[in-house]
């Protein structure tokens, strides 16, 4: 299951950090962040609960970059 989310992020390095955080989150199989298009694409594991996983991704991203936002 793949979903794309609109995101807000100020700098390219931060976008990279968001991508790392997303990849590390449990339930996420693969994640890509494009700074240029302001989108995050996530591929979820088979049995993952999308809503919960994305909340965790969002929280993790907020920790590394307080100014970022993921529109769920």
């Amino acid at each position, binding site marked *: 299951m793949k979903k794309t989310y609109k995101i807000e992020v100020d700098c390219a390095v931060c976008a990279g950090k968001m991508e790392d955080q997303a990849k590390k989150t449990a339930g996420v199989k693969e994640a890509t962040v*494009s700074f240029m298009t302001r989108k995050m694409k996530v591929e979820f594991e088979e049995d993952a609960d999308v809503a919960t996983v994305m909340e965790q991704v969002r929280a993790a991203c907020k920790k590394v970059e307080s100014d970022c936002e993921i529109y769920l």
Partner: protein
Amino acid sequence: MSRKQKIVLARILLAAVLMIVILLSPVKGNLRFALFMIPYLVVGYDILRKAFLGVVHGQVFDENFLMAVATVGAILLGEYPEGVSVMLFYQIGELFQSVAVDRSRKNIADLMDIVPEYANLETGKGGIEKVDPDEVEAGSVIVIKPGEKVPIDGIVLEGTSVLNTSALTGESMPRDIGPGETIISGCINMTALLRVKTTKEFEDSTVAKILELVENSAMKKARSENFITRFARYYTPAVCLAALCLALGGPLIRMAFLHQAPMWTDWITRALTFLVISCPCALVISIPLTFFGGIGGASARGILVKGSNYLEKLAKAKYFVLDKTGTLTKGVFTVTKIQPVGMSEEELLETAAYAEYFSNHPISQCIREAYGREIDASRLSDEREISGHGVEVQYQLKTIAAGNSKLMHKWRIAVPESSENGTVVHVAVDGKYAGYILISDTLKEGARGMLEELKRLGIKRSVILTGDARGPAMAVGRELKADDVKYDLLPENKVDQVERMMANKYPDEELVFVGDGINDAPVLMRADVGIAMGAMGSDAAIEAADVVLMDDDPVKIPLAIRIAQKTMKIVYQNITLALAVKLICLILGALGIAGMWMAIFADVGIMVICVINAMRALKTNNL
């Protein structure tokens, strides 16, 4: 500029003015310190806040933290103007980056301004309602007035007009459209009103799919992009460590080994300079920006590249494998040669057309189309179609036989040797050979000279693969000057050929396959880069390929390579420039030659240069 950006600009200007005023005033001591704090906080309060939050969450090597340490350090050493300037220029750099990225996004959006804002939906009572294209259900009827964008894919019910397809294909050649024909969203209706029955919903229409493709292409990252991201992650901690070594090591070595004064201030200043240069911003932002520009620029020319990685690979293309029919040739069979014996060309064609009148064979249709005139069937009688051979008929009291060499053999008519490219239809009148008509596929205009152009762009070898027979295959190969031609291939043979070529090359030499979508899907997937003829929206092609040529014109293939090579050139320029300047500044900073001023100029200046350079990738109209 957005509101947020305008506020930052205001803060920058205010802080700059304040700083100049304070510099010019004769204040000293604590008052000077306090006054300098005003512009410092005005321009830097959010950086300090983010630095603090970063540390709290364990993010030490955060550029906000580094800027905070560098500027606070400068202030503690009494260098107030330096501290404020560093913060000021850092903010200028960040603002510039933000504005540049927004500009780039907008430029690409403008280039891809193919999204229709509305659709004219026919309401049941005979009226027309302007609605959001999203709201139109498949199967509804919409009206497209002259000058309007076609909002949704469909079939024309009524109206004959001319379309401008430049938004999709990059070509301004107009296309005729009439009832019963498929119409694609994104084109502009030029001359007459069209009534169209939609066949899809907006989000499945060509326009929406193309936009989605270009957006998603930013997700497929190139190797150089990934390299830079990983590099940046190691770069920052490394430089910070180096800064620490400078700050502590310098003085300690001076004291312990050289027995000289430690000069803490001097070495700490150098270390702070290091911290300022440790920001990899210029590098990390300019690379994705360049690729984004390259992909956007390619779209404007009707070339859809589905990923930055494919752009990168195209620049390194060394082997080209191309399908023949439908890719290099038009895939439409027409009469290409009339070779009469003992009569004129017109006579031979007329004779053949009359002979072929009763047959439904595609060859017969070809000949009749070439003749073009009305056929008076009353002149014909005793028609016979012999499968695998041809036709026989009585025409104007003469026995005409038209067909292949087997038919001629049956009538014991000698047939000249021919090495023609295509299907030969021999004609005999009353048992005497009257000549032949050649029916073949024609080369696309854009294919001529294309392979030679590719050679000039660095391609080592070009191979044409086809399921067609030796004659036509070799003829095309000769005309286009291909290095090799493989004919009589079944689909699985084509895959084998490509796999063998893939195995026999170096990994960084990319192999490109060009074909039309449906039949060539397995080969397209096997090649390093698969280019498909898009036939203006063929779903199968867009699915299977990595690059789609929206107007089926082979002339776009060298263009794609040129765009890719230009983009990669800019990428390497930026990487080299950014790394070189940073290295030089680090060395100068360590030696104490470069002050914090120079460091911040180098940092911001390089970023500005790299970003402007990256925007060059968008300009593809002169390639």
